[in-house]
């Protein structure tokens, strides 16, 4: 499959610049500092990793756009988009190649957090299912964020505006469910908002609940934005 060649190039470009290293480092450091330092994990004396991924939604809002912002904006700046569309690749392959290389970075970030639960496991009896749920949720949330960011990158002309727009949109769709805390809305609307929000579905994974509805929600969000991205580049022809 030709997607592999494109992914190879995307990843080389990521790792030839300091960006990828910084993003991964930032994620792993923040997660652990918040968990052990601010979260006072050891003081709680509780065999529970609930808090470890609590700040993931916020962290992702900051770092996922940094990964996805370059995907199209950079191509446009270098005028390589013209080359890309004249290569024997379908629009689907191009969009997937870009998306999967972002996912590769995401997986790398998540894998680098694994030593913590593995080590903590020696100190107490942790609930495996919940930890697996947290990882699952983080992975799905990350993919959703990347698909949104990549779509926004295809609509903007430079990386800075791609980043800022993506952050704003991600804040919106992550926390729209919490809007009921600020303003008074009818319960029906509040429920709809809460259902649409990324964080609601992430939280249920965090609790260790595997619900097909949550899987379906993430699957729909991811495929919707990938579809929109393909549409956008097709329309430009």
């Amino acid at each position, binding site marked *: 499959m030709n997607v592999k060649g494109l992914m190879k190039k995307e990843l080389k470009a990521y790792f030839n610049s300091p960006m990828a290293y910084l993003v991964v480092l930032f994620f792993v450091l923040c997660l652990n500092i918040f968990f052990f330092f601010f979260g006072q994990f050891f003081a709680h004396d509780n065999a529970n990793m609930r808090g470890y991924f609590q700040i993931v939604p916020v962290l992702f809002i900051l770092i996922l756009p940094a990964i996805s912002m370059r995907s199209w904006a950079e191509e446009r700046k270098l005028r390589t988009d013209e080359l890309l569309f004249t290569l*024997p690749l379908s629009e689907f392959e191009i969009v997937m190649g870009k998306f999967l290389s972002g996912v590769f970075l995401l997986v790398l970030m998540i894998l680098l957090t694994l030593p913590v639960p593995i080590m903590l496991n020696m100190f107490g009896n942790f609930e495996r299912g919940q930890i697996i749920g947290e990882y699952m949720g983080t992975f799905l949330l990350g993919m959703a964020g990347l698909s949104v960011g990549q779509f926004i990158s295809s609509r903007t002309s430079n990386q800075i505006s791609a980043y800022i727009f993506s952050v704003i949109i991600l804040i919106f769709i992550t926390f729209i469910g919490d809007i009921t805390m600020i303003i008074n809305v009818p319960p029906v609307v509040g429920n709809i908002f809460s259902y649409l929000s990324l964080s609601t579905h992430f939280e249920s994974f965090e609790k260790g609940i595997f619900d097909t509805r949550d899987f379906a929600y993430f699957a729909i969000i991811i495929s919707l934005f990938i579809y929109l991205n393909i549409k956008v580049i097709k329309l430009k022809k």
Partner: protein
Amino acid sequence: MIRVENISKIYGSMKAVDNVSFHIGRGEIVGLLGPNGAGKTTIMKILTGYHYPTSGNAVLNGYSIYDDPLKVKESTGYLPEMAPLYDDLTVSEYLDFMADIRKVPKNEKKQRIEKVIEECGLSPVVYRGIGKLSKGYRQRTGLAQAIVHSPEILILDEPTTGLDPNQIIEIRKLICDIGKEKTVILSTHILQEVEAVCNRILILNRGHIVAEGTPDKIREDVVEDDMYTVEIAGDVNVDSMAALRSVKSIVSVDRTDGKTVVHMSVEKRSDAGSEIFDWAVSSGCRLSAIIPEKTSLEDIFRKLTNQGVM
């Protein structure tokens, strides 16, 4: 190899290409000429599948741009006006990527990449980041990318911009070599380049083809009068000048260093040289030179594209 049938492309309210048709066979190098905005780049973008035409069809290497866009893209190599390079990659990583995507077989890949590196003179910068290369190396890397899979059809948009004279000659030679077996279509502003490289020219103006053929054929079609420069030692008296004027129309007369230089235009294919000679003998002028002037491609180009010939 390339068959373009009644292609039109409209951007908004602007008709960039208007009902253009042409045919290019294997082993031909065809130059697209035209002022800025004549539609050269648009035609190239349609051929490479970057844009769809508003109407009309193009068939490359037997594949239609509508029905088999991926097959078309596989059989072409394309160098856009601005070399499309990833600044974060090294030259070798970039060529490797292009060879992968262009489906160069694994066992030939290394060999092909080495060959284009040599052909395009890239060996000093193979492991350098593309972002740090000079304009000339960037352009050559762009060309290397277009030929790494030895495509049947090569589409080059102003391939020699930013190169020094030596490199221009090398690249032209390379294009000529490729053109022996493959099909090359290139656009350029440099008219000498067309004469040096192309077998055939298409001159475009405002989205139309205004002239087509070999440089000599176009010259014949477009030029109405031949130009002659006649040099005569010493002065020419008024009577003989009048005699000359009755035969030919004189464009200008210069008198310098005891020499008279007469520029004249003569009806095409008349036996002008010997007529001028006869005149010189009968009027007793000492003729030092009769130079038939070939109308330059520049003049033809200006003539065709300035008056908006339809």
